[in-house]
């Protein structure tokens, strides 16, 4: 089935994109799947010469923003970030500091607006190029760079005490 192949190709990206918005594994899985269901129902409207993920991302983003709007008070955020394996630390004190930093960064990220967090996650965690982000968010590349700069600046402000 063509759609099954498309899902299998894009499911990880979809899941991580949802996770960036909602910050909880189960909800991210559910929302990314719901977005695939909606995409399937409207698949006849999808221009097959275009990038499926860009189209799917618009559906997913709307679902996630609706979810955030409707569940403002109920959302519990999982710890979704960790240090890369090569950054592991054998010294217990340094390891504890790193854990602390990880929690601080996650807290700061989820205090940002969904759209600031979105652009940071796309660039810094998922390593999309500016061009790819521009395509996904349907913005000019210059705007992507500028939004990224100001989003990092807001993050720096939230981590001010740590940075000093």
């Amino acid at each position: 089935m063509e759609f099954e192949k498309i899902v299998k190709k894009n499911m990880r990206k979809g899941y991580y994109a949802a996770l960036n918005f909602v910050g909880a594994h189960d909800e991210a899985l559910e929302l990314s799947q719901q977005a695939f269901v909606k995409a399937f129902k409207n698949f006849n409207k999808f221009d097959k010469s275009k990038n499926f993920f860009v189209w799917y991302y618009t559906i997913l983003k709307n679902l996630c923003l609706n979810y955030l709007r409707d569940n403002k008070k109920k959302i519990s955020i999982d710890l979704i970030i960790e240090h890369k394996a090569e950054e592991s630390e054998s010294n217990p004190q340094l390891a504890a500091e790193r854990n602390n930093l990880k929690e601080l960064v996650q807290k700061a990220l989820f205090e940002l607006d969904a759209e600031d967090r979105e652009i940071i996650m796309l660039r810094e965690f998922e390593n999309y190029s500016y061009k790819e982000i521009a395509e996904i968010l349907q913005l000019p590349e210059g705007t992507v760079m500028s939004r990224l700069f100001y989003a990092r600046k807001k993050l720096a402000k939230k981590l001010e005490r740590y940075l000093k």
Partner: protein
Amino acid sequence: MKEERFIILLERYFSNELSKEEESEFFSLIENDTQLKKEFEEQKQIKEILRKMEIKNPDRNAWEGYWLSIYNKLERGIAWILISLAAIVILFYGAIEALNKILVNNHIPSIVKYAYLALVLGVVILIVSVAREKFFTFKRDKYKEIQR
């Protein structure tokens, strides 16, 4: 204007895309402006912190059952549509049949007959109203293919 140029050069610097000329332009901007230099240091620090982190992977089982879960959702969606359509047809048929029997039955008081007619009419108006609203929302909603 200067800040806009700085941001573009900074981002291109981070992704190693600066040409020689742009590199010297970028460093000259930083050297001649303490505020921009401060911004550069701050952005570098944040980039460095984020570079060491990644998103946790979900349990492997999540991927194994992913497609099946979508398939089940699609299948149930089709089942609900069939059930809803069949229920509407059967209810409509039942209502017409009941209406015929009630209206010709002389033992039923007129008030009950009128009440039954009002009930059927009310349900029909309600269905038409909801259907019309859905139809117009669908026609006007530019994100109709996105969220429903």
